[in-house]
């Protein structure tokens, strides 16, 4: 189709943000409906794009550009989707839609809230579809900054300022280091272009790649939550308001991992080969250590925050296998975990809004007053544990298969993460959702509204759908992974 669907999806959010800034701040309901309409449009378009992708042809589709942007340097506006980033575009559409639904109750300056959220969304979309290095950084930074305001202003009072500053600084340090690496690549290639597809043919020397790969990969992997630069994430997750946490864990961390793949692995495969063992080690620590820390948390949201760190470790394990199965699994895990963690945070938000506490010992019996919420959380929990029948299993399995092909002992150690995850998930489910309702909550916990229901059903439904019918996503991701694998020298 000639319709520039990708650019439209990317720019609707920021366009809406501008419109919102023009609306008077006290017309709160109007603001909310405008935001919802925009989010829904993005969601529908992303679904449309997803199902219109022609898998037989493969490669980059819906390509726009390259349109010269800064001709003197060879910077252009160039977008396109393939099997790896199209699911992520869809994921962003899903999360922005459900995020707006869940945020219906934000009452303090909703105009600014939704405007910043949409600026964030544009940044995220922009990065995923970028095929030009400058453009990628351009949108990357647009995606990171609004987090600061969103967390600092609307977040949890106890830690929001600290968490927001820590998060923003960490993420920027990572991205600027990656920037230096990217610039080095552009100038070493001497092709007068920033276009990533062109740079794939650049033929960097092995020594060059080995030196610069860590700059780029680890710079972006900071946003992916790699150990030991992951500890911005739990604080950030917990301090953020619900929709922002959904975005943060569900989409933003995937941004980092994806950029690490796109700019690091795909452009410097030799470098990736050399550094893969280190990535394997660090990611394994993510998986196991993240799960262990999650297990001992008292605050419900911190459990989920650390569980995100653990699951992103799996994504990076998948990358580090550098083989087709592992890469496919990583791509699937990015999508599955994204939806799952959005679901988790939505649930946490609903519980917290009503119970005003997140301490696990103080909660109980939620399933009696919010049954759908409980079921949604259980679905998410099962995905998190990698229970077959759900998307988590579908995603984790190829990662492990990839690990077996590369470094079997890692597979065995990482599997421990699954067991630990199962135990803390079941613990939360039984403590928070079942059992008796504590006296202080009786009669005070209201039911959720219809928007919340739509969001929960959509998110949970997707997780089950993929678990039962993986063909709806696996072949697409595999074709994208194939492209990466080809760059790594695989046939």
């Amino acid at each position: 189709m000639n319709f520039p669907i990708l650019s439209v999806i990317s720019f609707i959010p920021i366009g809406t943000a501008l419109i919102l800034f023009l609306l008077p701040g006290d017309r709160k309901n109007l603001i909310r409906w405008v935001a919802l309409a925009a989010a829904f449009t993005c969601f529908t378009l992303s679904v449309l794009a997803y199902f219109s992708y022609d898998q037989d042809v493969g490669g980059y589709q819906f390509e726009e550009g390259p349109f010269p942007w800064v001709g003197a340097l060879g910077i252009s506006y160039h977008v396109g989707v393939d099997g790896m980033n199209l699911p992520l575009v869809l994921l962003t559409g899903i999360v922005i839609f459900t995020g707006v639904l869940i945020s219906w109750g934000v009452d303090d300056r909703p105009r600014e809230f939704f405007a910043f959220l949409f600026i964030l969304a544009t940044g995220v979309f922009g990065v995923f579809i970028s095929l030009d290095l400058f453009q990628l950084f351009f949108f990357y930074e647009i995606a990171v900054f609004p987090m600061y305001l969103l967390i600092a202003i609307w977040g949890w009072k106890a830690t929001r300022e600290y968490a927001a500053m820590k998060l923003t600084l960490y993420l920027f340090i990572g991205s600027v280091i990656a920037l230096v690496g990217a610039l080095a690549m552009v100038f070493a290639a001497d092709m007068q272009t920033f276009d990533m597809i062109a740079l794939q043919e650049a033929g960097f020397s092995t020594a060059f790649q080995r030196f610069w790969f860590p700059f780029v990969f680890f710079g972006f992997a900071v946003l992916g939550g790699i150990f030991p630069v992951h500890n911005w994430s739990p604080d950030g997750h917990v301090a953020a308001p619900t929709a922002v946490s959904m975005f943060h864990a569900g989409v933003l961390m995937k941004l980092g991992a994806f950029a690490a793949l796109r700019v690091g692995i795909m452009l410097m495969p030799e470098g990736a080969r050399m550094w893969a063992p280190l990535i394997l080690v660090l990611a394994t620590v993510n998986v196991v250590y993240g799960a262990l820390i999650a297990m001992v948390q008292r605050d419900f949201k911190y459990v989920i925050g650390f569980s995100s760190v653990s699951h992103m470790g799996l994504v990076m394990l998948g990358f580090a296998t550098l083989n087709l199965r592992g890469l496919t699994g990583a791509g699937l895990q990015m999508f599955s975990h994204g939806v799952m963690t959005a679901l988790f945070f939505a649930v946490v938000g609903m519980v917290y809004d009503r119970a005003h506490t997140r301490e696990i010992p103080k909660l109980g019996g939620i399933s009696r007053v919010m049954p759908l919420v409980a079921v949604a959380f259980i679905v998410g929990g099962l995905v998190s544990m990698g229970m077959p029948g759900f998307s988590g299993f579908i995603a984790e399995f190829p990662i492990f298969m990839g690990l077996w092909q590369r470094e079997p002992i890692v597979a065995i150690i990482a599997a421990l993460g699954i067991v630990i995850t199962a135990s803390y998930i079941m613990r939360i489910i039984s403590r928070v959702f079942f059992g008796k309702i504590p006296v202080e909550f009786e009669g005070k916990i209201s039911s959720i509204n219809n928007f919340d229901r739509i969001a929960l059903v959509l998110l949970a439904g997707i997780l089950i759908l993929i678990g039962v019918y993986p063909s709806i996503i696996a072949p697409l991701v595999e074709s994208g992974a194939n492209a990466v694998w080809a760059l790594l020298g695989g046939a």
Partner: protein
Amino acid sequence: MAFASFESAHIIIVLPEILLLGLAGLILLLDCFWRERHRRILGWVSAGGLLLTIILAILLSRPEIDGDPILIFGGMLRHDWLGFTFKLIFLFAAAVTSMLSLDMEDLAKRGEYFALMLVAAFGMCLMAAASDLIILLLAIETTSIPLYILAGFMKADDKSTEAGIKYFLFGALTSAVMLYGFSLLFGFSGETNVYRLAAMVRVGDFSPWILLGTALLVLVGFGFKVSVVPFHFWSPDVYEGAPTPITAFISTASKAAGFALLLRVMLTTFPTIEAYWTTIFAVLAAATMTIGNLLAIPQKNIKRLLAYSSIAHAGYALIGLVALSSFGAASIVFYLLGYVITNLAAFAIVIVFSQSAGTEQIADYAGLSRRSPGLALALMVALLSLAGMPPLVGFVAKFYVFAAAVQSGWIWLAIVGVLNAIIGLYYYMTILKVVYLYRSDDEQVSVDISRPAAVALVVCSMLIIGIGTISGPWLDLVVEAAKVLF
């Protein structure tokens, strides 16, 4: 390049300068006649005149595209894209400063104020085009002396007086050292024309250490203008004490003028000892960025914070010089372009706020986002541009500068630069935090924004976003400008 003899066509080339002087005279004249009634008119006349000058300059005084630069007036001035670009920057800064000064009673009703500013602008235009040591010195002094006076303009205010004196003393001292350096250069070559001097120096086979020493002497003067470490000590006090529109002018136009000098003189006169002075500059740039950023963190007064931030920005721009490439020079010019617009916007907001709320303390900005969402948004745009966030011009500017560094192999400097950008982000975000997060008791009191200030802010904000997003044509312009240096 051709050493054209005096031709009447050259008058057109210096039309902007002539208009500036004419405008200054006009204002002094009007000031005599109009007295109290039409005070604000002076400012509008100044701004309008400057705008007219810009338009005429673009229409009539442009250099040829891809043409050779020419030396005019017996080799005193050089007419090329570099000079022209800087000229436009200075005129723009002066126009905005005029508009911002309209609301400050003490300044706007004095005709001398605008006249001095226009003379300073005139001096800067000469600085950008100067190609002879003598005219260089004259231009520097023509710029500086009005600025000394303007800094101390508010005689009743102790801080302002202190600022003026301090500025004067520092400036005079550094000028003297620089003049000594110029005299040595003359001694080596027997020439005052910068280009002929450069040729003689090359041929003359001087010891690199002597040349380096001379370069350092000259650097003292330039460094002062640009406020690079260790010649930056005057900045915070002068910026804080001077009337804010003048602070805006000094921090933007004057600094840009200093860079114009640096570019021309260093790259033309001292190419033989490039290896030495680039290393020195690299160290200076790193030190400037770091010290500027670190010292900005504990500041409680926004003008002082912006002063230290300006010092840091000089450091970023200097990286482009170290890169020693055409692209590097282009990136400096672009950086200055973006920086000037952004800093003007930032100071505009400071002016508006201090007029309305009477304070320059950062803590008093609390709740601004509720009092005046538009002003808060403008502040966010300006600060984020200073921090280097897309889609604002500051991001692109930093990107180009760091790209130039990486391209020339100065990896460590690029890394220091990017890390410093983070430090900068920290304190800019802290201000935004105060504005957006903190509450205050007088949230219902809205902030008065006068029309000229609003116009200035809107124009600057649009440019910040516009140049940041569509930076291609602007980069082409500065690349053209930089070409003349290599």
